C-alpha cells in the first residue's frame, strides 16, 4: 500500500493549517494525531484499486478556501428542510458548524442526550468512542475530518431509553463566493436495549461548489435498535465524501438506508462491523443520478461472529452521462458460521451514455454460511413499457411509472412518514425531470 503514500501535498494538506485549536486536550490530541496521519497519506488516484473507476481530478484541481476566505453566505430557507416529526429533536449544522438557532432539541424524553459534540467533550461516551470507531485505512478524508474536529452531532441513549421522535441531523451547505470544505461529524452511542431513528440529511442550498467530508461513528450495543436514514441532496457542483461506520453488538439491529440524489461526485463508504453473535443489519442504498454526476459506493459488511443476518440492496438509476460505481465487500471471518447475507446491486440504465461499474465481492472464510450476491445492469424492459402503453399510458408516463417502481423497493422500509413521502416525491421529480431517453431495445 506504499503507493498511496505519495508525498505531494493536496489542498487538504494546506487547509489543515486552519484547524481549530480550542477544546480539551483529548480533542487536541485527536487533531494532532490526525495531522500526523494526514501528512503521511497522499491524495488518492485511479492507480489504486479502490479508486480505479473514480476520477477525482475535478476535486484535486479545485482550489478550496478556508471558511474565512471563501466568502460564505448565511443559510436561507433552512426551515424548508425541517421534518415535522423532529420539531423538537433536530440538530442543524451549517457548513459543518453547529447552529443553535436552527436546532431544536427539547423533546426527547428521559435518557436521551442530543447536542453539539463540542459541548460534550468530557462526556464519558465521547471520550471512549470519538475517533476510536472510525477505521478507514490510509484515508486522507477521514484524517482531514479529524484535523478539523470541532462541531458535530452527538446522540447518546441510556440503557433501555427510546427516542420518542426521529432525530434529524440536518447538514446545510450555503452559497459562497469560493469553494470551501465542510467536515461534519456524528457520534451515536446506543446503550443496551435502546431504540432510535436517525434522519441524516445533507442539503446544498445553492448550486455552488463545495466539498463535504462527513464522518460518522455509530455504536449499537446489546439489544439496541437503530433505524438510520441518510439522505444526500448536495448541490449539483458539490463533492461529497462520506465515511459512516457502525459497530453492532449482540442482538442488536442496525438498519440504514442511504439515498443519493445530489453532488457532482459522491463517494460513500459505509461499513458495518459485527461485534458479536445474533445481529441483524441492513445497508440499503438508492442512487438516482443524471447529467455528469458520479456516485460511488464502496461498502464493507464485516461478519466477525456467527449468527448474523445482513441485507444489502443497492439500487441505481443512471441517466444522461452519469456514472455509478458500486463495490460491495462482504467478509465472513473464519469462525463466523451461520451467516445469512444477502447482497444485490441492481442498475437501471435509462440513457445510452450512462455508465455503471459494479463489483460485488464476497470473501468467505467460514464454511457454513448462506451468502447470495448479484449484480444486474439493465434498461427498462420494452415489454413492460408496452404493457402500460396498452393500458392507455403514454410511453413517457409508462417509463416514469416503471422507473418509480424500480426505485420504490429501497425506500419502502423508510419508516419516517414525512421522509418516505419526500423520497417518493424525489423519485417522481427525478423521473419527470429526466425526460427519460428512448433506449433502443
Amino acid at each position: 500500500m506504499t503507493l498511496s503514500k505519495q508525498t505531494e501535498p493536496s489542498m487538504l494538506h494546506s487547509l489543515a493549517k486552519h484547524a481549530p485549536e480550542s477544546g480539551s486536550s483529548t480533542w487536541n490530541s485527536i487533531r494532532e494525531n490526525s495531522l500526523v496521519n494526514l501528512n503521511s497519506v497522499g491524495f488518492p488516484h485511479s492507480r489504486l484499486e479502490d479508486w480505479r473507476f473514480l476520477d477525482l481530478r475535478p476535486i484535486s484541481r479545485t482550489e478550496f478556501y478556508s471558511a474565512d476566505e471563501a466568502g460564505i453566505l448565511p443559510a436561507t430557507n433552512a426551515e424548508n428542510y425541517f421534518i415535522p416529526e423532529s420539531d423538537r429533536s433536530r440538530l442543524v449544522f451549517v457548513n459543518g458548524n453547529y447552529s443553535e438557532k436552527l436546532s431544536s432539541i427539547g423533546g426527547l424524553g428521559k435518557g436521551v442526550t442530543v447536542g453539539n459534540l463540542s459541548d460534550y467533550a468530557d462526556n464519558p461516551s465521547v471520550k471512549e468512542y470519538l475517533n476510536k470507531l472510525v477505521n478507514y485505512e490510509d484515508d486522507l478524508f477521514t484524517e482531514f475530518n479529524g484535523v478539523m474536529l470541532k462541531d458535530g452531532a452527538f446522540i447518546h441513549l441510556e440503557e433501555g431509553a427510546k427516542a420518542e421522535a426521529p432525530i434529524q441531523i440536518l447538514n446545510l451547505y450555503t452559497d459562497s463566493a469560493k469553494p470551501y470544505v465542510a467536515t461534519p461529524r456524528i457520534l451515536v452511542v446506543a446503550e443496551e436495549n435502546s431504540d432510535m431513528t436517525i434522519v441524516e440529511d445533507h442539503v446544498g442550498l445553492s448550486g455552488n461548489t463545495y466539498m463535504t467530508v462527513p464522518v460518522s461513528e455509530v455504536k449499537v450495543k446489546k439489544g439496541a435498535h437503530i433505524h438510520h436514514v441518510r439522505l444526500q441532496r448536495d448541490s449539483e457542483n458539490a463533492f461529497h465524501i462520506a465515511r459512516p461506520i457502525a459497530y453492532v453488538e449482540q442482538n442488536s439491529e442496525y438498519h440504514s438506508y442511504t439515498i443519493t440524489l445530489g453532488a457532482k461526485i459522491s463517494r460513500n463508504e459505509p461499513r458495518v462491523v459485527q461485534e458479536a453473535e445474533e445481529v441483524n443489519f441492513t445497508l440499503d442504498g438508492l442512487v438516482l443520478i443524471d447529467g455528469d454526476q458520479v456516485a460511488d459506493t464502496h461498502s464493507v459488511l464485516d461478519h466477525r461472529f456467527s449468527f448474523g443476518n445482513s441485507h444489502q440492496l443497492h439500487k441505481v438509476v443512471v441517466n444522461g452521462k452519469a456514472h455509478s460505481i458500486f463495490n460491495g465487500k462482504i467478509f465472513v471471518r473464519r469462525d463466523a458460521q451461520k451467516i445469512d447475507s444477502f447482497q444485490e446491486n441492481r442498475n437501471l440504465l435509462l440513457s445510452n451514455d450512462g455508465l455503471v461499474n459494479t463489483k460485488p465481492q464476497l470473501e468467505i472464510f467460514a464454511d457454513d454460511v448462506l451468502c447470495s450476491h448479484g449484480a444486474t445492469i439493465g434498461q427498462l424492459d420494452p415489454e413492460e413499457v408496452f404493457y402500460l402503453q396498452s393500458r392507455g399510458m403514454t410511453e413517457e408516463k409508462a417509463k416514469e411509472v416503471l422507473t418509480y417502481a424500480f426505485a420504490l423497493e429501497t425506500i419502502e422500509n423508510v419508516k419516517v412518514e414525512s421522509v418516505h413521502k419526500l423520497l417518493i416525491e424525489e423519485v417522481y421529480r427525478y423521473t419527470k425531470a429526466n425526460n427519460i431517453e428512448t433506449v433502443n431495445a
Partner: protein
Amino acid sequence: MVLELKDLHCEVEGEGIEILKGVNLTVEKGEIHAIMGPNGSGKSTLAKVIAGHPEYEVTKGDILFNGESILELDPDERAHAGVFLAFQYPVEVPGVTNNTLLRESYNTIAASRGREELDPLEFDDYVRGKLDLVEMNPDFLERSVNTGFSGGEKKKNEIFQMAVLEPALALLDETDSGLDIDALRVVSNGINTLHGEDDAVVLITHYQRLLNYIVPDKVHVMLGGKIVKSGGKELAFELEDKGYDWLQDHAMVNGEAK
C-alpha cells in the same frame, strides 16, 4: 366492422424476418372470433401487432379499426380508441397498485373518448362492482400490479382490466393457458358477461377447451403467418380431432408455408 386486416405483413423490427405473411380478417361488432394454430404460427404476433407492439414493423397491408387505419397510432392511442390486449404473460409492476393503474387507464381513456373522468371515490364504487365478475377480493385492488400473483390471478387480472376499461375490441392472447378448471370457468364467464352487441372479441388459443365455455362465431386457423382456413365453431372440433397436419398440406398447396 370493428376490425379489418388487409393483407397484413410484418417483421421483427430491424431483423428482416417476416412473421405475418398476408393476413386477411374481418371482425364485425358483436362477434367472437377464435384464432387457433400451433406454436410459432404467428397468432400472438398478430395480437401484438394490432395492439401496436413496437417490436414489430408492418411492412405491407393495413389494420383498420372502425374503418380507419391505426397503423400510425402508438399503443396508448390504440388503447384510447378502444383496443385492448389481454397479455399472455402479464407484466409485474411492483410499487403501482392495481387500483392506481386502472384509475389512470380508465381516466385517460375516458378523457380521450370525451367521457367524464372519475375521482378516486367514484372510481372506487365503479371498480368494486367489476370485482365480482372475476370473483376477486377487494384487497386485490391494493396489491401491486401482478406482483407475486399466481398465473391464474394474472389472467383474471387481465379480464378484470378488460371489465373496467370496456374496450370495443378485446384481443385475448392465450388467456386460457395455465388456468385450472375453476379459473377457466371464472375467466370465461367474465368474458361472456362482458361481451355484448357493441364490441368484438378475438380469442387466441392453442386449445379447443376454451371454446367449450365461449362459443365463437368464427374460427380461423393460422399457419406460417397466414390464416389458412376459416369456418364456424365446428372447425374447432375438427381441429381437435385431426390436429393441424391436414392443414399444413393445405398451406403448402397455397404455396408459401415455411
